[in-house]
């Protein structure tokens, strides 16, 4: 059975990729809307920030809409419950860990693709200067996607309905983004907001992605460490919650 593991994982990843691509509404809107907002807000940010206005417009919108994409992560898991397919899959030789990996990988790739497209759009259309290497930027995007994925899975383990998920994602995303400096540069925020900003993962995402675009590897590494830690904690919480949920299911 163990030798079948790569085949089963490939099947699950292919299946979940199909599910995501057949329901692309959220992803398309979270790709198109930030592009429009980047174009609309970039003159404002350029005027307000003589240095780095374009980066603020691009990275700010990227972070805000990637946090909104948490709903895609949560929905991917929640629909399995509403469709009753989670239990159906458990009657196959697939383990829960395999099911989670099969779900997470396609969503992770989609998050990376979404952010990469937004950075390319920012560089080509909004004229954001890019000094960082492709590898550095991709690493930063992957770290942020990992943190988002872990937070999304943890959220999906807690919420009980699509309505709850939407509410948590919308309120959470705007709060995390706003406090993290995605909408307003940190230096321009009120003192109390500047003080609490580092508590928001959005702060570290904005810091890391701006540093990656600017080619500052040390700053990327520092922020990445924090985000990996956030992702790890969320991942552990998600595992605990899912494990408890399975025990409840089995009675």
């Amino acid at each position: 059975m163990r030798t079948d593991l790569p085949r089963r994982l490939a099947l699950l990843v292919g299946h979940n990729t199909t599910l995501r691509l057949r329901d692309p509404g959220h992803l398309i809107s979270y790709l198109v809307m930030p592009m429009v907002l980047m174009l609309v807000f970039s003159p404002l940010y350029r005027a307000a920030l003589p240095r780095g206005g374009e980066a603020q417009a691009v990275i700010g919108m990227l972070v805000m809409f990637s946090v909104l994409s948490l709903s895609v992560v949560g929905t991917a898991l929640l629909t399995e419950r509403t469709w009753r397919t989670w239990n159906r899959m458990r009657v196959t030789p697939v383990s829960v860990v395999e099911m989670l990996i099969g779900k997470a990988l396609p969503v992770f790739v989609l998050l990376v693709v979404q952010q990469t497209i937004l950075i390319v759009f920012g560089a080509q259309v909004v004229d954001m200067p890019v000094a960082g290497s492709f590898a550095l930027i991709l690493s930063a995007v992957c770290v942020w996607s990992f943190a988002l994925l872990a937070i999304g899975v943890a959220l999906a383990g807690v919420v009980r309905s699509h309505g709850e998920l939407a509410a948590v994602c919308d309120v959470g995303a705007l709060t995390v983004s706003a406090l993290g400096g995605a909408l307003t540069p940190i230096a321009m925020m009120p003192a109390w907001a500047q003080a609490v900003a580092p508590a928001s993962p959005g702060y570290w995402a904005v810091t890391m992605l701006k540093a990656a675009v600017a080619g500052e590897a040390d700053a990327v590494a520092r922020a990445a460490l924090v985000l990996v830690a956030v992702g790890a904690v969320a991942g552990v919480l998600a595992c605990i919650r899912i494990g408890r949920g399975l025990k409840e299911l089995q009675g």
Partner: protein
Amino acid sequence: MLEALGLVKGYGPVNALDDFTLAARPGEIVGLVGHNGAGKTTFANIVSGLLRPDGGRVLVDGKAPGAARRLLGLAPQHIALYPTVTPRETLRLFGGLQGLRRRELGRAVTEIAEALRITDFLDRRVGVLSGGQQRRVQAAAAMVHRPALLLLDEPTAGVDPETRQSLLEVVRDHARTGAAVVYTTHYLPELTDLGASIAVARHGRVIARGEAGELLHGLPGEVRLTFDDEEMRVPTTDPAATLATMLVEATKPVRSVDLSRPTLDDLYRAVVRAH
């Protein structure tokens, strides 16, 4: 193939299963009947490893359910399918996860699709199919890998007679190949069509178990005589003798005679009344 002994399962103060015992041999179709809440679905969920019993034990081919998933096929009571994929993708997914490889998988998908008459809508999305079509896809997904133990939980609920017949035919064929089948239903005539042995569940335990013929033996049938102005019905365990007596004693012309044997419905009612 399936051995469940003294299963106990509670949900808070409610005992869903209370010393539930049932076995099924290879090639046997067991018709599991009982009113809502009798424990049929809880039993199916324990056998398929979705629920853990509070007491008792289940063995599938000598293994615990968790270690026997390759041997299992489950069509749950409620539709549990991905609405945005097609029946072909569904069957390829479940067949593949159960270990079928390329050519073997393709052949298995074609065979089960033809047997359950889903070929016409094999490439349409499941979400746009009718309830009956989705039921067929669900049954096909349970059977595509030809499991040694097949659990069908009310597979014909809400389906048309034609679909029902094709499903029963496939289940019979599947059992003929040596698989054990546990078939849960409220439509008792289906069990006659399947030639199933019967298990009647009530309040979380099996209260009657055996071949349909054995269980029906001794149950009263009915003799019905119709006259011009009235109808006479007499329950009897010896219809021929009763009819002869009734004809001899009849004082007016008999228009029609009807002898009916006891049915599984009668059996179910009698067993439930006795408990």
